[in-house]
């Protein structure tokens, strides 16, 4: 039996188990061992389901032995961001408010992973309710960057990216509201995708900002991300905002829902690439240098690369934070500790004072966003803030749409800066918000965007972001895959 099964990509794991090169149980025991050994340093997992994972591996092995059918992800170890509901497994959003909360239902993506026989090994760390860019705002403590544990892993899906980078699971699911998958993917040197809005069901994703967020896959390679997307994407009767226009779809056997089918073929012939000037020029020189050299390599093939400009970008951050906080203030209202939540005695409280008492247990950043969000929606300010933010969003959408008439993909850095040390920005919320400048456009416009590793600067990873028009995931995968093969920087951190 090979010694380092945990190093394999999801692709290799799936075929290895299917071809009986090794068993699911052998593989999972190595994964669990790996988590046990290094997660004390990384803190990517908030809970590990050893028993569930071992049982699932046993049943997969038995079915393979008996010649029965197994799903496309049979045996592959997956970690799930702890804001995605898993039936019977605690789902806490890294918040005191959901301490001990066990959902009675599976998110649609979890159902689909289970149908595909993936093995869910545990739940992953995040900023409380996915609000943050460093995973420092977690009640479980921060997730550390596997490339240098004194540095942040990015956020809010810090656990999702760090766990994959640190080889604690083959792939993971995160959620991306303003860059929450792409930012940590970039900081941890893995591949992370924010799908088109409506491409993946949000049923079971605990809402932070419903009109912006999507569940997104994280993997070591573009190929793995494609494989995971094929498992989780598609329309869902439990989420009326889902849709699909993919050319190739297969029907779900259980319902009227359709599942898109993506393929992996590198193709950059005649691809028109626009390099978003404002974002490249606005980045830290260490970052833009990496981006330029990657684009340089890429443009030696048959594609057309040119600089382009996105003028509405200056409104993106303000629009994004206004909308996200407004929606958050309403989405998080339900946490009043009446129907679920941590232990707290309501006796001798009138309900209003009880709400106030228990809601004081939100973390500082969440409170800040609830307060600002309530403010921008309140009478007299709605027009000045929320409505204006929606108008700016519409402008951005229009400009993005017109850019995609000229280009097949747009390219920018994923993050304007390199990963930084813990505590560096936590005391200055505005500075923290500003690092989302490169990622929020995709959420505001509802388009797909992927972050792929393109290099290192001072041993710290740099990610490149590729955006495509809505529902053009296939184009995105084609270009990302070409980049990946040209740049070819895949390696793993020493922990």
């Amino acid at each position: 039996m090979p010694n380092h099964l945990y190093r394999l990509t999801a692709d290799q794991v799936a075929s290895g188990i299917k071809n009986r090169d090794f068993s699911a149980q052998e593989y999972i025991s190595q994964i669990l061992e790996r988590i046990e050994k290094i997660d004390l340093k990384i803190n990517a997992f908030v809970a590990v389901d050893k028993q569930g994972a071992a049982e699932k591996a046993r049943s997969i092995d038995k079915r393979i032995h008996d010649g029965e059918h197994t799903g496309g992800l049979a045996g592959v170890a997956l970690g799930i961001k702890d804001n995605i509901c898993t039936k019977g497994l605690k789902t806490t959003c890294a918040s005191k408010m959901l301490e001990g909360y066990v959902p009675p239902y599976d998110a649609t993506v979890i159902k689909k992973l289970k149908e595909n026989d993936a093995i869910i090994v545990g739940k992953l760390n995040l900023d409380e309710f996915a609000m943050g860019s460093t995973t420092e705002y977690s009640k479980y403590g921060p997730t550390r960057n596997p490339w240098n544990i004194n540095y942040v892993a990015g956020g809010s899906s810090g656990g999702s990216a760090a766990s994959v980078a640190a080889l604690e699971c083959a792939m993971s699911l995160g959620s991306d509201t303003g860059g929450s998958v792409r930012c940590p993917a970039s900081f941890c040197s893995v591949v992370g995708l924010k799908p088109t809005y409506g491409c993946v069901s949000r049923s079971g994703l605990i809402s932070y900002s419903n009109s912006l967020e999507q569940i997104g896959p994280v993997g070591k390679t573009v190929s793995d991300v494609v494989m995971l997307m094929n498992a989780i994407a598609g329309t869902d009767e439990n989420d009326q905002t889902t849709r699909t226009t993919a050319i190739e779809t297969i029907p779900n056997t259980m319902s009227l829902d359709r599942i898109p089918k993506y393929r992996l073929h590198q193709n950059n012939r005649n691809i028109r690439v626009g390099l978003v000037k404002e974002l490249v020029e606005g980045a830290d020189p260490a970052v833009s240098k990496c981006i330029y050299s990657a684009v340089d390599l890429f443009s030696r093939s048959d594609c057309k690369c040119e600089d382009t400009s996105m003028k509405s970008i200056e409104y993106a951050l303000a629009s994004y934070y206004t909308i996200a906080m407004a929606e958050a203030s309403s989405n998080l209202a339900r946490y009043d500790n009446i129907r679920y939540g941590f232990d707290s005695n309501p006796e001798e409280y009138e309900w209003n004072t009880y709400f106030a008492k228990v809601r004081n247990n939100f973390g500082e950043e969440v409170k800040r966003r609830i307060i600002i969000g309530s403010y921008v929606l309140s009478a007299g300010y709605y027009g000045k803030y929320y409505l204006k933010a929606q108008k700016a969003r519409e402008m951005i959408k229009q400009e993005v749409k017109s850019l995609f008439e000229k280009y097949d993909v747009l390219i920018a850095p994923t993050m304007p800066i390199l990963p930084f040390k813990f505590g560096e920005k936590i005391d200055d919320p505005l500075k923290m918000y500003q690092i989302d400048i490169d990622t929020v456009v995709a959420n505001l416009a509802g388009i797909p965007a992927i972050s792929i590793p393109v290099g290192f600067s001072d041993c710290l990873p740099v990610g490149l972001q590729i955006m495509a028009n809505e529902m053009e995931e296939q184009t995105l995968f084609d270009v990302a895959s070409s980049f990946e093969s040209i740049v070819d920087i895949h390696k793993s951190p020493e922990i």
Partner: protein
Amino acid sequence: MVEVKIGLEIHCQLTGLQSKLFCSCQCDYRGKAPNTNICPICSGLPGTLPLLNQRAVDFASMISLALGCKVPDKVMFYRKNYFYPDLPKNFQITQYNAYGITSIGVEGRVDYGIKSTKIRRVQLEEDPGRLIYDTSFYTLIDYNRAGVSLVEIVTEPDFAEPKDVRMFLNKITSIIEHLGVGDTKLDGSVRCDVNVSLEGGKRVEIKNVGSFRDVEKALGYEITRQKTMSVRDIEIKSETRHWDEARKVTKQSRAKEEEEDYRYFPEPDIPTIVLGNEFLSSLKAKMPELPDERKIRFLREYELSDHVAQVLIDNKELADFFESTVKIYSSSPNEIANWIVSDLLGFIDDSKREEGSLFSGLRIEAKHMAELVKMIDQNIINRNIAKMILGQITKTGEMPSYVLDKMNASLIDSKAIISEAIESIFNSEKSAVRDAKQNPNAANFLLGKVMQLTGGRADPKIALNLIKTKLAVLE
């Protein structure tokens, strides 16, 4: 004469639906153990998304059309944010008229009698759960009702008199019943907030009048209260009052809560719903006959008087009963309608009208009414006997012919037989006979004795007449 302005806000549950507005839980929550008619969606569990029930949109559109409203091409849902323990999400998904987007119905008009009232808007929203104020220390919450479809109908303040309001509400009830979208007789399925102001005065709102019957009473009380205050030069404050059902008065609500800011914004989880002309015309084609149309048909088809037709269509059950009867016996629709409106209605216990069916407790069916009218037409019975028979069948559910046979068989109306009985009583009750001679009221005692002797089968009228005649001739 001071002018009174009254406006209404009516909440009506769409009990005609199978499931709730945003999940597949039963719409019928009544009589279920607390918190058993719930699911992750309607109890607001983290991660759940509302799944709009398309039939609720159809129903609300039908109501809007029936109330003469414009139905926009596109509708959206909004969140109304406020903290209250009966709201599982601490916001209510409802509709809102702003920024060029309207609720499912706007600018309608309803005619009733010779008057009419403008409808400001109709909107579709979710009902909250129920708070149960236990006598003990706790308040209990039951979410079984949470998420049931509710239609809110808001009128302009066009009413001048409580009795107009009553007529209007009758019409609304009848429309809802005719559309088959709701059963207005179910407890709590229709609720009403009313606002009242005297000419130029401040507006007072009365919340949560639990039934349409009480609306008229609450208004009567409130108008008198305001007029009395104004006569005494006491300022009427703009306030919210509650209707005290037990004492039949309006009461000031607890200390005025600060002006609530609901922070409305569009619900991101429900895509904009496109209605449009095609949808509306297919809906119109499916719509059942409305009360106004039915009345015109009654006038034309059965040649009923306007008044009788109006009484019938004001209550769908009554109109249905009439038509079922005519189906069985079609020769005299007018006679049938008159019997229903002037006689059968008399047997209906008014106090029970809002609780259950109009006919609850009455065992009469259309076949009984049909036979009864037929027997009158054929001169088998006269009107007085028909009335007696009607009274009997409402209690027993027996066929009129059977009741008649029984009456014939059991009643002793032979004067000879009754006289014999009287003779024997007069002999045994000498002192009572003497009393009765002085005091005619005492004759009833003798009648009682005669009835006793005949086992209650003597015709009491004949018997009493015979007793009186006999007393008169007695020396």
